[in-house]
């Protein structure tokens, strides 16, 4: 494509609307009263090439209209996802297919059928976000480079047509007296304008860096999105839960057996009106009832020494003791352990005495570890008990046979075989809570219940997230960019000295009141007349129309 040579001699790339050096209008905008200063009228790829399929894709994603449309679609889709709770927030025991219809009627059913219960991980939502990311990238590239080039190459002496068609514009007739511009320059310098001069013409500029703000924040967002994408790379992200009983030590899932954790104690503390330091909350406690104060797991972290061979006992080394609380996770070697759940008073042991049913004479007791029962318990001489079957979470199935629902001792049941000197063959007894049965005929002996012990169980989330620093970097870059672009404005003031007049024009990318204030201050004690805002004038001349519109 051919380049465009301006009258001033500057050669502009094809598609340029305003000469990068002198500002003469090159494009079709010649008729407009004010020129469109966006991107300095530079040649953007998307505005110049429109033929090939690549051009078309490029132009699609670089369009702000498309970008905003994508934002609005993402916004609406996100809102739809909050109408009903997402799948991860419904009770874990519920089946989604039934739950939504049961709780929310036909609407819930439709919501579920459309897949809105998992909206944020649906393919179409991810496509919208992906398209937004592409749009961020392409729109930024399309604008940044031409803008950077034209701001770098901008001339000091500007074409008359450029000056006249700036929003802020003023002419001071010199008649026969001359005006020394030094005062104005000093005034502008005081306001931290950077002054450049050429043949007596002036360009005062400040805060050009704020123009890069949008591009910086877009880079931040792109890095953030990349970080979010990397999460699905294996090894970058771990999300597991470990349940630990008091006194129990287990391998931490997700660490490949490298770390072990022992739960020494779990504590649940609630606010207590009687307690002096919680006194001020008594009204709230009366109203809501129990309010939790602390969930805490006192744990010990162990690290495996050397390589573990299957079947061999692992050699563990103590790393540290820690009190894990909500908001105070245990962090070690990229892993974090968070307090997320608990269960109080889970049955841990159950004790029985072997007695003669008639005489109630005792022949020794057993204490069964419900999580790790023995097969056989020796009692007084000649007396022993075999544990034939154990059902930690017992129920009868459809056929009336005993079975266990889970491995958690919620409702333990046992089948014992009691060996005694007079019954060496043994008597079989089925024992559950508040229930005993003698399936093989009348027994002489029985296992009499003798109390339980309970313990607390803590649930910890195991997390490793190697993408965090990427997300954090992206976040920081975004914040820097957005502050850079929002809290500063790029302002330029051109002063052109001509034979019998001084022409002044001003442009800012935002906050026009600010630049007007700057100019007013700079020319305060000179005889330069204050430039006017041509847009305001236009408005006031059509005021009646505006009001009726």
């Amino acid at each position, binding site marked *: 494509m051919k380049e465009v040579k301006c009258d001033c001699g500057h050669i502009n790339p094809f598609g340029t609307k305003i000469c990068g050096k002198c500002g003469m209008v090159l494009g079709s905008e010649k008729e407009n009263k004010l020129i469109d200063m966006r991107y300095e009228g530079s040649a953007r790829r998307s505005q110049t090439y429109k033929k090939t399929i690549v051009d078309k894709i490029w132009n699609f994603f670089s369009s702000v209209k498309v970008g905003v449309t994508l934002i609005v679609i993402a916004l609406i889709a996100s809102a739809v996802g*909050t109408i009903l709770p997402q799948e991860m927030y419904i009770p874990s025991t519920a089946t989604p297919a039934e739950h939504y219809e049961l709780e929310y009627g036909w609407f819930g059913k439709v919501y579920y059928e459309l897949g809105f219960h998992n909206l944020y991980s649906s393919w179409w939502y991810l496509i919208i976000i992906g398209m937004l990311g592409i749009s961020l990238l392409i729109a930024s590239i399309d604008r940044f480079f031409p803008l950077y080039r034209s701001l770098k190459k901008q001339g000091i002496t500007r074409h008359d047509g450029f000056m006249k068609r700036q929003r802020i514009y003023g002419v001071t007739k010199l008649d026969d007296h001359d005006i020394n511009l030094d005062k104005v320059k000093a005034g502008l310098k005081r306001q931290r304008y950077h002054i450049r001069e050429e043949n007596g013409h002036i360009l005062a500029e400040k805060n050009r860096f704020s123009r890069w703000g949008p591009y910086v924040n877009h880079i931040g967002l792109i890095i953030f999105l990349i970080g979010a994408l990397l999460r699905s790379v294996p090894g970058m992200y771990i999300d597991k839960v470990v349940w630990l009983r008091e006194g129990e030590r287990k391998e931490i899932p997700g660490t490949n057996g490298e770390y072990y954790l022992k739960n020494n104690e779990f504590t649940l503390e609630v606010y207590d009106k009687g307690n002096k330091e919680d006194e001020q909350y008594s009204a709230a406690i009366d109203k809501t009832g129990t309010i939790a104060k602390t969930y805490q797991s006192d744990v010990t972290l162990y690290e495996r020494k050397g390589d573990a061979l299957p079947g061999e006992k692992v050699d563990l080394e103590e790393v540290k003791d820690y009190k894990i609380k909500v908001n105070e996770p245990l962090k070690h070697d990229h892993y974090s352990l968070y307090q997320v759940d608990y269960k109080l008073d889970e049955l841990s042991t159950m004790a029985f005495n072997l007695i003669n049913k008639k005489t109630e004479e005792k022949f020794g007791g057993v204490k069964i570890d419900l999580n790790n029962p023995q097969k056989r318990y020796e009692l007084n001489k000649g007396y022993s008990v075999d544990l034939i079957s154990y059902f930690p979470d017992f129920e009868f199935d459809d056929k009336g046979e005993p079975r266990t629902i889970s491995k958690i001792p919620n409702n333990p049941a046992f089948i014992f075989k009691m060996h005694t000197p007079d019954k060496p063959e043994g008597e079989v007894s089925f024992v559950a809570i508040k229930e005993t049965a003698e399936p093989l005929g009348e027994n002489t002996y029985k296992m009499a219940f003798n109390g339980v012990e309970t313990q607390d169980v803590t649930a910890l*989330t195991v997390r490793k997230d190697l993408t965090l620093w990427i997300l954090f970097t992206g976040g920081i870059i975004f914040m820097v960019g957005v502050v850079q672009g929002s809290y500063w404005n790029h302002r330029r003031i051109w002063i052109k000295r001509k034979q019998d007049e001084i022409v002044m024009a001003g442009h800012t990318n935002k906050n026009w*009141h600010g630049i007007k204030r700057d100019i007013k201050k700079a020319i305060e004690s000179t005889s330069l007349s204050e430039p006017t805002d041509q847009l305001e004038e236009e408005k006031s001349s059509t005021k009646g129309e505006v009001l009726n519109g």
Partner: protein
Amino acid sequence: MAEISSNFLYAAFLLYLVATFLFGGSIKDKRGAEEKKQNKWAKLAISVTILGFAAQIGYFITRWIAAGHAPVSNLFEFTTFFGMMLVGAFILIYFLYKTPALGLFALPIALLIIAYASMFPTEISPLIPALQSDWLHIHVTTAAAGQSILAISFVAAIIYLVKFVDQTHSSKRTFWLEVIMFTLVSTIGFVIITSTFAALDYKANFDWIDKKGAADKQEYNLPALVGPHEGKLIEADRFEPLVSMPAIINAKKLNTVLWSIGAGLILYGLIRLIARKRVAALIKPIVKNVNLSLLDEISYRSVLIGFPIFTLGALVFAMIWAQVAWTRFWGWDPKEVWALITWLFYAAFLHLRMSKGWQGEKSAWLAVIGFAIMIFNLIFVNLVIAGLHSYA
């Protein structure tokens, strides 16, 4: 200490009220029309506003001492704080632009927000474990600061629209402007109704059947226009519900909404009857001297100042805390999603303004929608969509 604290809040409320009238006076005064020169009324008004703001800071500090934690942990505390930050943001913008008209609208909105806040339970509540973190203060205060500055853009937009919209004939514009006015009036209605029945100590208890078929009890603090599912009134002398709701609908909340709309309709109707004009037309003369392009600038500038602060507080700090407290920085909790929606909306606003030249009226309507989204997130998401953030 708790009592001193609430006295400070009363004082702040009264001072804001006085300041509103003073701003009214400053606008009536001809000299108030000039932008740069403040008249005596305006100077007095902004002084009283600052005094009120100081009183509210007094409330904040004393309540912090009384509670042992920053008072931003339930709906009453957060909403009050939002009101306070709105006044703070107004003071900031006022010193940038010196526009008394802004005070005349910003302060009543802050008053409404604070009055609305005090309709929620005001006891000092202890912090649940998830909230016991310094990030509570950091995240909540920054997010509220950002929101309140964004809210100033709504205030400027309202003034813009009141002045801009032609009231000589009815149009879509006048309709939507009246919708905004009606919403504001309904909030007043809600406050009046709730505090009246609270003063009368009205309580009506119902036995009802919830959606799982279980029997339950519910206490109404307003006469029940709509009763709960298969509800049976326990006290004989209470108002019998007109209709009973199905179990899926929270009848108590719906009842409150109906009362607010009803009270709003009566108030609004009365205003229309007496004035024989639209409410916006009624207040239009007050703003006849304001400069539209200045308001447009204020509205845009507030978004520019507020957007980064909002991002920092409601997204960046929020994510850092969520990572610490909830094990993940983002979990698609409704409050999180609505913060994202707010952010996306203002991002769209900025792009439309910068690249599509949506200025003036269009920009003003957008500012109104942005504020509506924030209020929706504050009220509806907390009260109706239950999530991790519904602590109140």
